[in-house]
């Protein structure tokens, strides 16, 4: 199988190296555009995310082709410390198929099972279809590879629990908020401390519909800056207790050496107790909120250890289902192998069909000369009859040829069929790449692999 991938990922390169390899959308389209002419790569798709840059290409029949693929990434990474080559990995044949399936299913991600990568794989495929060359850089082999990869990603996520649970502190916070408040649109959050972690949580809340986030910080200017980024409002740091009644979520992340929110302060701010739930996410070390606050009615207090424990638990549970996910992927890799092997007999099937179609036309001409009295409807009926008969006659040989190819007996079959039907050997090169896969003449047209395959 002359299919390959060359790439760099979080497994092989630190972030400062990975960012050198990253392609923007326009850059990716430009890079793909020259590959056919310059490197003889007929098909290519480039995935570029913050954790990986990978070039899938076809054909990669020899080391030179593989080197041409690697050069695309190497050229992009000019300026990377040391040799760019030391970060690159290369996979060929079924290994490259397996790799993409793992990537799409989130098995190769930094956070096991994360779902974002599937969308990024889809975007990469779509970018390849937008490269202004004919035929498309997302040709039949990579089209099939990427559509099945998206489908495999969907299968793994729907048939296992690999995508379940929150796998980062920010997503845990959002999940908790969602399970307490439902929609976040009408809820209020207060961020205490303008640290990066708190901002990540605040951004995640904003992405889930929360508006008007309040920010308080000892240095008020930093609070103002963060509030502007979040389209919220900055409030004085000392307002915290008096604001407790009106907010639903409190995220704390100050650098204070002691707790900034004590049980006494909470009880003082809420003398009647808290009737509605209050979610407190304490991201600070040392903790900003006294643990006793969590025992107050309707107060849900989670500190950074609680959140990490939830994340670790999620990741452990995801690891537990890895064998199931890998089994799904192996089945799909085998399905791809069969499809790919079946392509080898495409020229033969096409030639066979062409020969018999020619004979059918000749015989129909002979018939029309002798049955000139037939009405157009009758002629059409006879034509359809001949088509159907030919389809049925060729159905079984077509199926058997494909099976033979899948089972590695393609050379024997080609020779036998060529001899029996006196076919021109020139058009029957097994290594030849075909853009079209002729349908089985007796079967309905196969469903095209469109984006609807993605789940």
């Amino acid at each position, binding site marked *: 199988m002359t299919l390959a991938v060359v790439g760099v990922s979080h497994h092989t390169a630190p972030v400062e190296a990975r960012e050198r390899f990253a392609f923007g959308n326009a850059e990716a389209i430009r890079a793909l555009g020259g590959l056919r002419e310059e490197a003889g790569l007929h098909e290519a798709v480039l995935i570029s995310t913050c954790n990986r840059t990978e070039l899938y290409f076809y054909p990669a029949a020899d080391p030179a082709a593989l080197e041409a693929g690697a050069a695309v990434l190497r050229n992009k990474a000019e300026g990377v410390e040391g040799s760019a080559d030391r970060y690159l990995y290369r996979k060929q044949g079924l290994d490259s198929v397996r790799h993409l399936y793992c990537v799409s299913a989130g098995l190769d991600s930094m956070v096991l099972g994360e779902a974002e990568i599937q969308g990024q794989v889809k975007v990469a495929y779509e970018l390849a279809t937008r490269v202004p060359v004919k035929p498309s850089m997302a040709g039949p082999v990579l089209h099939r590879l990427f559509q099945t990869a998206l489908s495999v990603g969907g299968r793994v996520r729907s048939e296992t629990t690999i995508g379940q649970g929150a796998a980062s502190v920010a997503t845990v916070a959002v999940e*908790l908020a969602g399970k307490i408040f439902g929609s976040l649109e009408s809820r209020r959050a207060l961020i205490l401390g303008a640290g990066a972690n708190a901002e990540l949580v605040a951004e995640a809340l904003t992405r889930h519909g929360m508006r008007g986030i309040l920010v308080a910080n000892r240095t008020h200017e930093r609070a103002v800056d963060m509030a502007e980024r979040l389209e919220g409002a900055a409030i004085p740091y000392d307002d915290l207790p008096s604001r407790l009644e009106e907010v639903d979520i409190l995220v704390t992340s100050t650098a204070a050496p002691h707790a900034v929110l004590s049980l006494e302060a909470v009880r003082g701010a809420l003398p009647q107790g808290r*009737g509605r*739930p209050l979610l407190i996410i304490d991201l600070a070390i040392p903790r900003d909120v006294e643990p006793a606050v969590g025992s107050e*009615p309707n107060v849900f207090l989670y500190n950074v250890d609680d959140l990490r424990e939830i994340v670790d638990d999620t990741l452990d549970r995801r690891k537990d289902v890895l064998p199931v996910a890998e089994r799904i992927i192996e089945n799909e890799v085998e399905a791809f192998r069969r499809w790919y092997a079946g392509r080898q007999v495409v020229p033969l099937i096409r030639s066979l069909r062409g020969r018999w179609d020619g004979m059918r036309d000749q015989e129909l001409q002979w018939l029309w000369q002798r049955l000139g009295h037939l009405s157009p409807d009758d002629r059409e009926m006879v034509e359809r009859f001949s088509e159907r008969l030919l389809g049925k006659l060729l159905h079984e040989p077509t199926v058997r040829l494909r099976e033979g190819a899948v089972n590695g007996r393609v050379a024997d079959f080609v020779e036998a069929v060529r001899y029996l039907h006196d076919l021109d050997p020139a058009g029957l090169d097994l290594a030849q790449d075909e853009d079209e896969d002729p349908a089985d003449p007796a079967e309905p047209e196969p469903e095209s692999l469109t984006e609807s395959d993605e789940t």
Partner: protein
Amino acid sequence: MIHYVALLLYISALTLWVRSLLSGGRGKLAAFAFGIAAAGVFAHAAALARFTLLHGELPLVGLAPSLSTLALVIGAGLLATIGLGEVRRVGIVLIPLVILMEGLAVALGVQPAEGVLDFQGAWFALHVTLAFAGFGGMAVAFSAAVLYLLQFSTLKAKRLGAAFRFLPPLATLDRLGRIGLVAGLIALTLGLALGWAWTVRFRNSFQPTDPQVIWGMLTWTVFVSALVMRGRGSQHERRGALATVVGFTVVVVSYVVLRLAASTGGFFL
């Protein structure tokens, strides 16, 4: 026969809901469970419609027919959540109630009570239907409250497992509980008023010591208490949920006690 089909469908739905709970609400099991439960409600309705056609009276009198009708009303309450996504998962609490009542009705035999000519007519039918609707509203509120307390305890204990993922958000459950209580209280109030009017109109008497009257007033008081405990605008969600669960339990237990002690025998619901 149709009652058995309905029961079977209810039990199947409950099994699916439990499986969905164990898997953390993954996949379409919960939606499928709702579909099966809905089929059960339709079969149940068909069984009671057949009863009405066969006997020429509504299944509102006598313990077994009344229980079956009440179960149907609760099932209909579940159907009312059809467009509310995760809220439909209250079925995991509602359906066992339905199974219990319908199972009991089937065990007793859903047959018309003898000597019930007194209990006929539109007034009576409306009175019982509204009272049942009130109880149905309370059952929905009870289910929401049970799930609220479960979700609350998982969040407090920081056990974000399968139950956490299966259960709807606290705010959603609180809203459903409030709607169930308010709608139920309105229906029950109207039902009680009609019952009083019916008693005065057709029996020329109103006995405050009648177990039915005691139970009706107790249920009404429980409704009002649960709403008062919640505070205005759901100020005290958890307290309201606790009050609903306790209130519903009081209503059911008091019914059993009164039913056993009732001198009116089979005519008390």
